[in-house]
């Protein structure tokens, strides 16, 4: 499950963000008539088609896997948190239809109608992302039912959808998708510019992707702060694990880095900022922050994994924010930096960072919620399928996903290598078909 999701989420993010990049390139083509923009739109749309299909099949697998792996969970949770899933179905459907129009609609429709279908792909992708995260948020912050003697009564699917956690999680996730995709795409095009290949083409692509990524990277820590305050309120155990915060105290320090020692209940080699955690979690340097000592042993999430994952996410978030700030500085004040190789190199280095941060972030929410599958209501161990031999299923899917990732990377590599031939006739006319 975690594997399928971790795989799916990468494709889903690209599927929801790339259409916006395409829409910008496409808009510029329609406005300026500059061929490069049309070719860029086409080149990107091929990539999107590949990612969309892979995202769609892995998503289809997920909707089955929920039942295949967690039948007990779905039997009880399905009717409660199913609302976002049913609406999500609608959003996907619209996305698939719009994509059909967009990919096959070149020269068939009014140019602006065609452009508009591309925008619809992006918007419905974003909406479906928000909806599915609302479903996940419900697992963190169950709402919309009364839990009486092991029975789920008075179900209210609307309340379940608008649970306490949905807003902060959906906001953070949507921005994350823009950060990750923006930096990944910008990084690839930056690399091609450094190699001096089809520079006119790649420079335009880079500018669009970097602008999206950089704006989002600056917003992300702000939204992360909203999330952290939210977690502190609704899942103190998760916050304590994220921060490896063992003892309840006032003026709690913010712990950066370090190796949690589970026996001694302390964190070694960490940088500590006094009062920092109290401030981040409750907006007050003197506030009391619940530590793991207040949580019964059997309800504690795995501390080390959660803590490391959280550090990775925040660390990468800060690095990307700095790159983003440098980039804006270059755009507005230091135009000469734009010609420098180091700026492009920074973007190349940052290519995978957003996606690593996304995987880390999900590890934080999911592992930080353990041992619960529905926070405070149902334990993960009680939700799993009774069928023995489930590991084989796991091995098969691992093999499938590995080979798919490999093929997709291979296809992308081929797309990029063919840019000169297929999409950029201007800079290297000799290579044109």
């Amino acid at each position, binding site marked *: 499950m975690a594997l399928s999701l971790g795989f799916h989420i990468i494709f889903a993010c690209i599927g929801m963000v790339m259409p916006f990049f395409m829409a910008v390139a496409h808009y510029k083509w329609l406005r300026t008539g500059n061929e490069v923009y049309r070719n860029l739109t086409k080149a990107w749309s*091929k990539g999107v*088609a590949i990612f969309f*299909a*892979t995202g*769609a*099949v892995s*998503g*289809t*697998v997920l*909707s*089955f*896997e*929920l*039942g*295949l792996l967690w*039948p*007990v969970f*779905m*039997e*009880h949770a*399905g*009717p409660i948190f*199913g*609302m976002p*899933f*049913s*609406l*999500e*179905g*609608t959003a*996907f*459907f*619209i996305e*698939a*239809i*719009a*994509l*059909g*129009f967009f*990919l*096959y609609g*070149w*020269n*068939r429709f009014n140019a602006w109608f065609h452009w508009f279908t591309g925008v619809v792909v992006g918007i419905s992708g974003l909406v479906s992302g928000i909806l599915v995260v609302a479903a996940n948020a419900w697992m963190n912050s169950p709402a919309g039912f009364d839990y009486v003697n092991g029975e789920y009564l008075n*179900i*209210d*699917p*609307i309340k379940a959808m608008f649970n306490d956690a949905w807003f902060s999680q959906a906001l953070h996730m949507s921005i994350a998708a823009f950060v990750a995709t923006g930096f990944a795409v910008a990084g690839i095009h930056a690399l091609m510019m450094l190699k001096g290949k089809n520079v006119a083409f790649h420079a335009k692509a880079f500018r669009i992707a970097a602008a999206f990524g950089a704006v989002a990277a600056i917003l992300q820590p702000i939204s992360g702060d909203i999330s952290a305050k939210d977690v502190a309120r609704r899942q103190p155990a998760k916050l304590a694990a994220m921060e490896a915060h063992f003892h309840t105290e006032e003026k709690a320090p913010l712990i950066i880095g370090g190796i949690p020692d589970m026996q001694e209940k302390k964190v070694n080699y960490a940088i500590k900022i006094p009062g920092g955690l109290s401030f981040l979690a409750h907006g007050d340097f003197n506030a009391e922050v619940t530590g793991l000592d207040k949580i019964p042993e059997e309800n504690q999430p795995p501390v080390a994994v959660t803590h490391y994952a959280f550090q990775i996410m925040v660390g990468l978030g800060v690095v990307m924010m700095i790159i983003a700030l440098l980039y804006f500085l270059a755009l507005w004040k230091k135009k000469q930096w734009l010609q420098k190789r180091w700026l492009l190199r920074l973007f190349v280095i940052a290519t995978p960072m957003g996606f690593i941060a996304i995987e880390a972030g999900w590890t934080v929410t999911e592992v930080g919620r353990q041992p619960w599958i529905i926070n405070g209501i149902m334990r993960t161990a009680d939700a799993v*399928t*009774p*069928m023995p031999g489930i590991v084989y299923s796991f091995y*098969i899917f691992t093999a*499938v996903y590995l080979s*798919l990732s490999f*093929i997709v990377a291979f*296809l992308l590599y*081929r*797309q990029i290598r*063919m840019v000169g031939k*297929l999409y950029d006739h201007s800079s290297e006319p000799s290579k044109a078909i």
Partner: protein
Amino acid sequence: MLYVVIVFLWTAILLYLLLGGADFGAGIIEFFTSRKNRGRTRRTMYQAIGPVWEANHMWLIITIVILFVGFPSIYATMSVYLHIPLTAMLLGIIARGTAFVFRHYDAVKDDMQKLYNRIFIYSSVITPLFLGIIAASTVSRQIDLQAQDFLSAYVFSWLNGFSVAVGLFTVCICGFLAAVFIIGETDSEADRQFFTRKAKWMIISAVLCGVLVFTASYIENIPLVDWVFGKPAGILAITAASLSLPFLWYGLTHGKAIIIRLLAGFQVCMILFAATYRHFPNIVLLKHGGYLSLIEHQGQEKTIEALAWALLIGSIFILPALFYLLYSFEKKKPGEA
């Protein structure tokens, strides 16, 4: 409201069978095409299904979502006892969807194409085979909630002659649907004849598999004959389907694309109707006489209500857009340069 949901469920299954089925069928036809004709088949197919293939498969997602939101215990039981065929079908879906896209969007056309093609073709056969097996297993009374050992709980729940026969039948139906659909899309007389021949072959195999299904049900004591013919409505449906066969044949021979499409859709609709109405509202029949019913095992009222509204509102957005998509790619205009 429950009935709104049930109608959507049934319609989603029907549309998946028709549209998704035609889509699988494209690969099945390729499977039964000699090597030298495959290129041509592939091109015609791609023009016809390219823009809509993604949308066709959404019906499966809708079906699953309706099941797990509205009828959670039915969904849970099926996921546990039919785990293996469901997984097989999923692998088929992954392989097929990705191979289809990869072969068209790979920037370099080289030997990788052969690999994509092979994967596409085989998974196009395997996926509907398991789809049919799963469907048959829900009514074959082999799901045993009291089973103690692995084999009887997780394997014999779906591995039996009847289920496999229905699986083969589904494969033929899919191939038939695809052939019928493609006939209207061809632009040369030679192509038209080629696909007409395929369609006829598929009808013949479907009828043979139908006989196989009845034989298997007889051997395994599944009262299929009684379900289908026990009540006037069933007899009517099957008779209508059978009577339309000669017309279909005539349409095929005389190249009436619209008529044969409508008739083919009608037949599948009738078959599904005959297969489901008799034990409605019980959609899963269990060993030892138990069953899971759409009415007794529905979710709580508020959930069903919300689901029904979500479906109704969703269809306001989806259906017009979907029709426009199908319509605009029907009028043939010059495609991408």
